[in-house]
């Protein structure tokens, strides 16, 4: 195709395409994929995951040390040559301000540092004191939401560390980070352009410009093949399959997202779903292989909501299999009379290329074979989420993306957790699980992983959550890019592409 010569026109710009879910690139407010992809390129963080190894946080701007009781973390400024895009050096004050701003402005990611007190010790040291033992903290700090901003400039532009903060618009248009790039133009609806930060203390990126375009997945297919784009984030496995493998490079990574069926525990709302037998019947009625097929080549089974690569994951060979005889028995036990259960899902959503609407239809067809009737209730994701949040949906598809790679992030699925509340599952509903949860929280060091695995196994066994699949995060890169880095931490590292 003529794409190559046309692509050549792109010169030192790298064009990446994704279907935007961009709300802001103020690091302390952003909480979505697009925002964090951008902020990853703009901001440095106190700690990092080197080479995408999510199990081991490493030094970023700072090095760290945890106290024995996991209550105190000491950060020491390590990269003293780091400079913001306006040339100011990165100081401890900037880090402290960034942490405090994250906490104070009550944005979506504020919870990251819930219960943590930030204290400047001297010009090189910061202390983070947690009320409760907080072993997850090193796993939290690499998140791009905790990017370090230039405190002086941000304060000059209405930035504060409480809810009166007014620097969001400013930060969208004028990024204040020390990462390899800075914002050139920001248009939340269509396009964000980044240019190289000439003060960046690392190796200067090969591509001095990054264009991130808002493009639907179907258009990404044609664009990546025709040389209109260099990187595509949202292709489904079916779409990837059709690509000319000689013209593109494909990198698939295990996703950090989980897709599950939720069942409401309140009989008034859920009807049959309040019955554990029914829920378990659902779990054994699904044909997981076919679902896996939808997710594409490297999709994985899940035995709990926790991704397989994380600490605390239940080994995937323990995931249930299809067993229609069992289903039949369970349904008989539940006394299910064939009534149609409303099944809610977001009709306009795809998770790592997995179309939720298609998944829902597949589930419906499979459950029908097993004698369970679903009536599909699609809605735009905003509406669907409203109903889910209000705990009004009997059954449906939920998705969870890891905020940080630590099992404690999945406590939301445990009774009393924020997601569990949406199926009316409260603390005290199951003493066994409450005990397991307490044990997991208490566990330290190497004990944590098995303790959490036990907790999530028990949680999953209730059938309230039926984990479906851990999709693959597929990044398609055009052949114009000779080498690149794509890992579980940064889906695609613009600065390292050549």
């Amino acid at each position, binding site marked *: 195709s003529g794409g190559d010569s046309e692509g050549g026109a792109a010169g030192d710009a790298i064009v990446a395409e994704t279907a935007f879910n961009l709300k802001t690139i103020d690091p302390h407010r952003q909480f979505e994929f697009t925002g964090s992809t951008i902020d990853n390129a703009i901001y440095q963080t106190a700690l990092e995951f080197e080479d995408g190894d999510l199990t081991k946080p490493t030094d970023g701007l700072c090095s760290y040390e945890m106290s024995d009781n996991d209550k105190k973390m000491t950060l020491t400024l390590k990269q003293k040559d780091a400079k913001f895009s306006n040339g100011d050096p990165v100081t401890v004050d900037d880090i402290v301000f960034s942490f405090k701003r994250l906490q104070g402005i009550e944005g979506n990611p504020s919870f990251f540092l819930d219960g943590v007190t930030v204290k400047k010790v001297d010009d090189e040291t910061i202390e983070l004191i947690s009320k409760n033992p907080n072993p997850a903290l090193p796993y939290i700090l690499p998140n791009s939401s905790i990017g370090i901003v230039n405190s002086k400039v941000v304060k000059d532009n209405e930035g504060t560390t409480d809810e009166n903060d007014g620097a969001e618009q400013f930060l969208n248009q004028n990024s204040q980070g020390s990462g390899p790039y800075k914002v050139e133009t920001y248009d939340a609806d269509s396009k964000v352009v980044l240019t190289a930060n000439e003060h960046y203390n690392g190796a200067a990126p090969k591509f001095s410009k990054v264009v991130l375009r808002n493009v639907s997945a179907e258009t990404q*297919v044609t664009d990546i093949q025709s040389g209109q784009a260099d990187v595509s984030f949202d292709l489904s496995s079916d*779409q990837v399959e*059709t690509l000319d493998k000689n013209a593109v490079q494909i990198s698939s990574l295990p996703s950090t997202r989980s897709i599950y069926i939720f069942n409401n525990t309140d009989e008034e709302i859920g009807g049959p779903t309040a019955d554990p037998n029914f829920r378990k019947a659902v779990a054994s009625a699904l044909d997981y292989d076919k679902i896996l097929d939808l997710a594409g080549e490297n999709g994985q089974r899940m035995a709990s909501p926790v991704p397989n690569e994380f600490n605390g994951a239940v080994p995937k060979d323990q995931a249930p299999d299809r067993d229609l005889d069992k289903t039949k028995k369970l349904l008989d036990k539940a006394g299910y009379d064939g009534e149609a259960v409303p099944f809610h899902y977001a009709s306009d959503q795809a998770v790592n290329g997995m179309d939720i609407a298609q998944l829902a239809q597949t589930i419906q067809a499979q459950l029908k074979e097993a004698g369970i009737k679903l009536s599909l209730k699609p809605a735009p994701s905003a509406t669907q989420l409203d109903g889910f949040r209000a705990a009004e949906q009997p059954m449906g598809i939920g998705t969870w993306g890891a905020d940080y790679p630590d099992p404690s992030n999945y406590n939301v699925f445990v009774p009393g957790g924020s997601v569990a509340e949406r199926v009316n599952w409260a603390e005290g509903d199951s003493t066994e699980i409450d005990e397991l949860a307490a044990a997991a929280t208490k566990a330290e060091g190497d004990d944590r992983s098995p303790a959490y695995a036990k907790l999530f196994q028990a949680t999953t066994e209730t059938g309230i959550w039926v984990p479906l699949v851990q999709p693959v995060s597929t990044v398609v890169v055009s052949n114009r890019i000779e080498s690149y880095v794509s890992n579980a931490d940064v889906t695609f590292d613009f600065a390292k592409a050549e």
Partner: protein
Amino acid sequence: MSISSPKQPPTNPDSTGAEALDRNPVDAGIKRWRLRFPKALRSPLGFVGAAILLIWLLVALFAPLLAPFDPLAQNFGRLVAPDGQNILGTDTLGRDVFSRIVVAARTTLPAAVFVVLCSAVMGSVLGAIAGYFGRFVDEIIMRIADLVFAFPTIILAMVIAAALGPGLKNAIIAILLVSWPSYARVTRSLVMTARSSEYVIAGRLLGFSAGKSLLREIAPNVVSPIVVLATLDVGTAILTMAGLSFLSLGVVPPTPDWGAMISEGVSQFSAWWIAFFPGLCILTIVVAFNFIGDSLRDTLDPHTAQEVGETTK
């Protein structure tokens, strides 16, 4: 907001000669009225349209017999290209595209006809009231119609569907709410012309009340243009429904639906058959209604025909 000057049919000096009859457009139209349907179908376009429609009606009627497979069963390989078994291929979930297309005719056709019937009734009743009673009743109804006109159909329908949730019922409500004004406009203008026409005044002089003359004298004269408009509008309704489904705001899956199939298909360019054939179905059926409507319109007198034509969106 259209400026329409009520045109009186030309009055020419006349004779007793019978051949003079053809010269008055009003009469010419009326003379053909009783022969209209068969005659309209005799025009080549009308015939082709009727034939296509007939085929589709038969398809819808006998869908269960025609569909070789269960349209919902995900029994085949996914994205299989058209072959001997799946003559139009399979979709992303391994369902037979041909069976889905055939069965989809069962939802689309009745729904479109139903929505058009409802909006034709609603619109023409409102339009007749506005046209006959005039003054502020007219102002209120027509300004509301203008407002609806001022909103792009699909956006309004989109918001309504998004608010009420997707689903055939809600799509129908949405389309109903945006499509009545064209009927209101046409009816109003026809009623206004008829109201001041001499035969209606003659009736009033004979002691008909306004309501009686509206029902007995005006209504029969308004019906045929409305029928024509409605025929043309079925096509529009099908397109709007397909558009809503395309934006996943229409028919709820897994019910087969052409618009939804296209939307699914465009994400799979290489599996072109998923989107291509349903598009063709929409095209042919809308063409059929438009061909028939157009031939019917040709049998109306020019003034009325223009009235119908002008307001069709």
